[in-house]
């Protein structure tokens, strides 16, 4: 049974340092269930570190991260979260199918699950190909497929659509939407602004701080522009003025 009470993710005053520098400066936000939340911001703004903290693989300095009502990283969450890293985490010396069969076995997912997710990410034609011989886009889709195995309640995807052609990108976003309609919570990071419009909710990060948190419509309205890229710029200016 899915526990539908409370937010999917609740982060409070999260601080993380990497290599001696603080990269997240006390973030506080919540992610509601059954929605696609976009994590947007330029490269180096702390998206990946935040995602790693949510998944529970990041050593954090201070603050709290609760995921599906449990502290991030607790053993109960390990079957409930589908996680896809930015660089494709699959075995280059195994075929796509062998990779997915192995990860499915680790998750205890059914035998046909590997075939299902291969179809979902559109890799049926490459299922017998070795990971090392895939193109960049195919590789990242294979990695995404691993995150879809089983029945995750939360999908955390770090830049899953980088380098994909527009048709494939559209297909994947449709898949994300349909998963959300089934009640799955998705957190998807991106540095491409045109993907932001497809999310229910946006969290904009810049230099380890939250710049904005709201619906795409709300952000456009607030900034007084229809273009999200421009809205992002205005928010940065606004903040700079406040500091001054």
């Amino acid at each position, binding site marked *: 049974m899915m526990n539908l009470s409370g937010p999917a993710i609740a982060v409070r005053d999260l601080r993380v340092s990497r290599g001696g520098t603080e990269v997240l400066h006390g973030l506080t936000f919540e992610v509601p269930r059954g929605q696609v939340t976009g994590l947007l911001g330029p490269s180096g703004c702390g998206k990946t570190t935040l995602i790693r903290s949510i*998944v529970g693989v990041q*050593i954090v300095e201070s603050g709290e991260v609760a995921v599906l009502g449990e502290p991030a990283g607790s053993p109960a969450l390990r079957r409930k*979260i589908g996680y896809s890293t930015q660089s494709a985490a699959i*075995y280059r*010396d195994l075929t796509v199918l062998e990779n997915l069969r192995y990860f499915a076995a*680790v998750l205890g997912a059914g035998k046909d699950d590997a075939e299902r997710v291969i179809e979902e990410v559109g890799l049926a034609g490459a299922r017998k190909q070795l990971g090392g011989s895939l193109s960049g886009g195919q590789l990242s889709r294979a990695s995404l497929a*691993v995150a879809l195995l089983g029945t995750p309640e939360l999908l955390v995807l770090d830049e899953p659509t980088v380098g994909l052609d527009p048709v494939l990108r559209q297909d994947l976003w449709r898949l994300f939407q349909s998963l959300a309609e089934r009640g799955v919570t998705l957190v998807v990071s991106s540095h491409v602004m045109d993907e932001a419009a497809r999310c229910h909710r946006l969290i904009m990060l810049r230099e380890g701080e939250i710049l904005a948190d709201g619906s795409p419509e709300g952000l456009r309205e607030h900034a007084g522009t229809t273009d999200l890229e421009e809205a992002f710029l205005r928010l940065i200016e606004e903040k700079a003025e406040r500091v001054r």
Partner: protein
Amino acid sequence: MNVAITLATAGRILAQLRHDRRTLALLVGVPSVLMILLRYVIDDPSAFNRLGPTLLGIFPFVVMFLVTSITTQRERATGTLERLMAGPLGKFDLLVGYALAFGAVAAAQVTVVLAISLTWLGLDLAGSVWTLILVAVLDSLLGMALGLFFSAFARTEFQAVQFMPAVVLPQALLCGLIVPRDAMAPWLEWLSDVMPLSYAVEAMQETARTGDFTGVLVRDVLIVGGCTILSLVLGAATLRRRTP
């Protein structure tokens, strides 16, 4: 421990090796060629009878150290380890999976080298072939466990390769291959006494020398087994769910 995950992991590692025919050929071929070289370089059957079993103890140790440290380093670098650690896989599922897969490869390796040595090269064994294989597999597991442990200190594959001479060569020099251990200076003999490969090689020599399961052999097998388990536990401690 989860048997299904452990077996899936062992199967996955064997599948990776199956796709890498060249590595497989090197794993089995190189020790055989070295053994043949040794036989004709020495060109003295009684000296070969003394040195041959020693090398049979060293080969699987060295090869498994190298293969394991690089494979594990690669798992860390490509992110598959992080992915597994974020999921329900237990540390010992992974370690025992490695042990099963590489133990099987070691058994195949030793069987081929032994077959060539006993027939073509005229190696004269007093003990049973099975004891020899058992001791060789144990040696290889020791190499695997140490390789796993030391791979944690290698940031790159390049460093992982450098650990091989650093960890293996001193042990090979001190294990009685070149000079009998009791003929060394006391401080070297003492060093030799605390190095696990010394006992692995002694067990091999003992098996070759006498047909009985002597007290020395039992002691050596226990020491090698103990060191293997100790290194596996230390190796498990280096597999972190959370990283900086």
